[in-house]
């Protein structure tokens, strides 16, 4: 089988680009979580912020990914390196599911539980960290899961601006009309998305049984 042969022959490059891909997805997801969860908390607690925050995240989501890469190119510092640019773009895309699910998760906490906690004299901080976030965690996690799966796919486009990752193979394969090259990028990306989906799904279910 010459396809398997091709994989074996290029295994070093495949591994390298897979790691690059992981780096892009990992860093952008981490940033999206660090920014998105606080924004979700803010919109859940102060309804005034709900529309502007979720609206903005929604609008970002509608910008075609290639165009977003283009828009960010002239931004100083960010535009100077392709990987920074790719990470920023992926972070922006990953924000919406994280913010939305944090918001939904917190708003979904039983009102009587929050009222009882407040009436007992829990501070806002105690209520947030001991009650609201733990109870919203499975919903937040499912948002992160969506963000990761989408990012794995989107990150292939980052190769178009020279940020590396598995998209390199795909673009090269497209240019050379070589299916083996395309598959060398697509298969590892698909495996990555599926394993992230499975692993986070497992974690989510464990949190939900409580």
């Amino acid at each position, binding site marked *: 089988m010459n396809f398997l042969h091709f994989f074996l022959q290029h295994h070093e490059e495949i591994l390298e680009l897979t790691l690059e891909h992981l780096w892009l997805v990992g860093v952008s997801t981490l940033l999206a979580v660090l920014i998105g969860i606080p924004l979700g908390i803010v919109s859940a607690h102060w309804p005034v912020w709900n529309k502007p925050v979720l609206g903005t995240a929604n609008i970002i989501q509608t910008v075609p990914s290639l165009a977003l890469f283009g828009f960010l190119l002239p931004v100083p510092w960010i535009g100077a390196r392709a990987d920074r640019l790719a990470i920023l773009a992926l972070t922006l895309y990953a924000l919406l599911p994280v913010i939305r699910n944090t918001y939904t998760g917190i708003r979904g906490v039983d009102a*009587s*539980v929050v009222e009882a*906690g407040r*009436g*007992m004299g*829990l501070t806002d901080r105690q209520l947030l960290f001991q009650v609201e976030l733990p109870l919203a965690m499975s919903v937040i996690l499912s948002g992160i899961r969506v963000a990761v799966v989408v990012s794995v796919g989107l990150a292939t486009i980052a190769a178009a601006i020279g940020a590396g990752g598995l998209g390199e193979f795909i673009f090269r394969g497209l240019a050379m009309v070589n299916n083996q090259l395309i598959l060398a990028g697509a298969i590892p990306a698909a495996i990555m998305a599926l394993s992230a989906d499975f692993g986070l799904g497992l974690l989510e279910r464990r949190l939900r049984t409580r």
Partner: protein
Amino acid sequence: MERTSANGPVIDFRRVAYRLPNGQPLLQDLSLQVQHGETLVFLGRSGSGKTTTLKLINRLLIPSSGEVRVNGALTAESDVIRLRRGIGYVIQDVGLFPHFTVERNIGVVPRIEGWPAQQIQQRVKELLHLVGLDPNVTSRYPHQLSGGQRQRVGVARALAADPAILLMDEPFGALDALTRDQLQREFLSLQQRLKKTVVFVTHDLREAMLLGSRIALMESGRLLTVLSPPDFLRSNDPLAAAYVQAFGEGLDSVANRGTS
């Protein structure tokens, strides 16, 4: 909680009104004192303002005008966290933390108050005994309990830090008749031992008569009258009389339906 004024009322409403942000009045011109060790029952239908009144005591709501004092101190000016931790709060939906075991639920306030683990464990054991729960429920989660057990845990949680005041908002309203009856009687004997100052909200005259030392009748955001249970039965107030009739003749007329 320390009582700052030795013989004054524990809770004191002075011409209190509460309006929603849109101006709709939920409570008007309420003046009432709750004395140490009594069980004051607010009786009224939904929307009469009884729950609003209760929430003004632990400052879940702040009066739009007038003042509420707890142990002589204005609630609007006191440290809200300290105020609430000195007041036990029991609600109809119980509001147990679903991700905490029974033991952790009961120990919430002692834990945030920084009690040592040993002491919390000891206190939980005491409280379970007090509210009539088997000690082996400690490691269960709320969804593994029956409705009656959950409300017992709710009462135990409210009593955990030994507050002098207990606010109870239709605590037995969602229970089946037999469990409700049992919990009401147990609460009565518990209260005779503990002598807490209790403010209780209900729409059930029977419950009000059984548990209350005084009954405060509410309607459309106003306090109509405050009467002892025996006086309530003899009252000329039309609403009080309507309650007595509804509850007194209710069973007979249902039992005799179609036969007369």
